[in-house]
């Protein structure tokens, strides 16, 4: 058996955050170094499109990622280095904070006869290419982007992150409701957003709360079912039963998929219809 030493380059949205996206892998098999990175092909310049798609809010900074890959390529190509040097150099380049950080050097055993380049490819696929626990954008930012795309904010009476109270006939508070976006006035409209990337329990709680809000909004006459929307990453949500409850109340078309590029159009059409 022989050993492969490797480290992953991780991208973090905030220099202090702990949840990152693996974007590149640098490895050493004892004889030579290997570099793999998102968008890095054989001999061609790096394609930054993949990085931009995974971190769209950093699209204009993608060139910094390319510079990091270039630096790791230089390290991998420093032919005189061996395992101990590799480990030392990675440790020297590691920073506790920053948007780009190298992980601690890890080790993987492989058979003597194994093709180290193929082992690195597999490792890259597993650790970098197919990483699934990364959201393309922070939730609040994603909602903001959706609202902009739906041309929501230009509508008279538009409010974001609204807390409101429905009142009984005697003026006492009946229910407290929260909407991520709301159009006040004669043609009211409410949008509720649920972060489906949260831990499962939290998703369940959020969806239950959204269903309660929807139910009471309709029952109290605050909103008509067709003017009530639920926005979430439906592909990421495993709470099918709760989603069905929402669909029963407001219709399947009004449960919008945050990852669907056409979703803002659905909302835009409803807003447009009511204004003309």
């Amino acid at each position, binding site marked *: 058996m022989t050993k492969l030493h490797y480290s992953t380059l991780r991208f973090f949205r905030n220099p202090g955050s702990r949840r990152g996206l693996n974007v590149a892998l640098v490895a050493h098999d004892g004889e030579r170094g290997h570099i793999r990175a998102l968008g890095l092909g054989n001999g061609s*310049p790096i394609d930054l499109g993949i990085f931009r798609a995974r971190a769209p809010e950093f699209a204009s900074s993608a060139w*910094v990622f390319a510079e990091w890959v*270039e630096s790791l390529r230089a*390290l991998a190509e420093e032919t005189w280095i061996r395992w101990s040097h590799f480990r030392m150099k990675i440790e020297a380049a590691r920073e506790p904070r920053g948007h780009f950080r190298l992980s601690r050097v890890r080790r993987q055993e492989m058979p003597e006869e194994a093709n180290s380049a193929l082992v690195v490819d597999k490792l890259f696929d597993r650790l970098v290419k197919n990483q699934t626990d990364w959201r393309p954008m922070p939730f609040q930012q994603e909602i903001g982007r959706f609202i902009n795309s739906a041309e929501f904010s230009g509508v008279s009476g538009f409010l*974001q992150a609204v807390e*409101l109270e429905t009142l*009984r006939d005697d003026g006492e508070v009946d229910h407290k409701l929260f909407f991520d976006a709301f159009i006040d006035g004669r043609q009211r409209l409410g949008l509720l957003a649920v972060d489906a990337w949260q831990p499962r329990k939290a998703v369940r709680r959020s969806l239950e709360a959204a269903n309660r809000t929807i139910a009471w909004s309709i029952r109290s006459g605050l909103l008509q079912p067709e003017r009530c929307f639920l926005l979430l990453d439906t592909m990421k949500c495993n709470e099918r039963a709760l989603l069905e409850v929402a669909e029963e109340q407001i219709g399947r078309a009004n449960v919008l998929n945050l990852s669907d590029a056409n979703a803002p159009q659905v909302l835009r059409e409803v807003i447009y219809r009511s204004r003309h």
Partner: protein
Amino acid sequence: MQVAPLASRPIEPRYRIVRVGKKPLIGITTPVRAHIGAILKADSIESSECVYNEWVATRLAQLIRAPVALGLLAKRGGSTVFASLQVIADEPTLPDVRSSQIYRISQRYPYWVAGLVAFDLWIGNDDRAFNLKATLLGVSPPLLCGFDHSHALLNNDETVDLSIRRLKSGELIVGSHTFYGRVSYRYFTEWLKRIENISDAAIAECCDAGQTINRVDHKTQNNLADALIVRAKKLREIVRRHDQTVFQR
């Protein structure tokens, strides 16, 4: 979950908006307070005049537009520190330059490399090493930027007095440099002219903080200015005597 039939809905609901988390933006030109990334440096045993050195080096670099990171004085815990502004504000930090990339850097930025060497020779910075950031790819904006001048100026020798004397003496001081042997003579002489053409008053102004900076008093600041004025005039001769070191590989 039960939803009441339409018939039971009140005609006009009674409600009030209690709180709005985010109002729509009106106008986009309103000035706002912001934070910019910086690395704070303080005086230490190893570099007892670090803060003053860094501050003066930044000002001198601006005089000739040498490719050096910007910075300013700041207060921290009652003492004065130097805030070296992040090389690219508001962007993720670039990786450190690797030794195997030095040749490519000198090929990509021959003019700036010559400027950095000329500047380091003037201020007696023997510690350039890898204290620089650079971009190497076509997709990136062109950038070469030096930082860390704590071991130049008043700290180029064991004491402040020795350091000032050394600057005045016409010694090379910078025995080795990351870009020695990779400097274009033609570009270097252009930078040399820039340094020679600075007025004495401008150099004196750069060194004068108008107050004591930690341990560096007004007299020391004046002495440094005198030394730098002398060194600017001697620099061509210093380089001529050591041209093999500076220009040949």
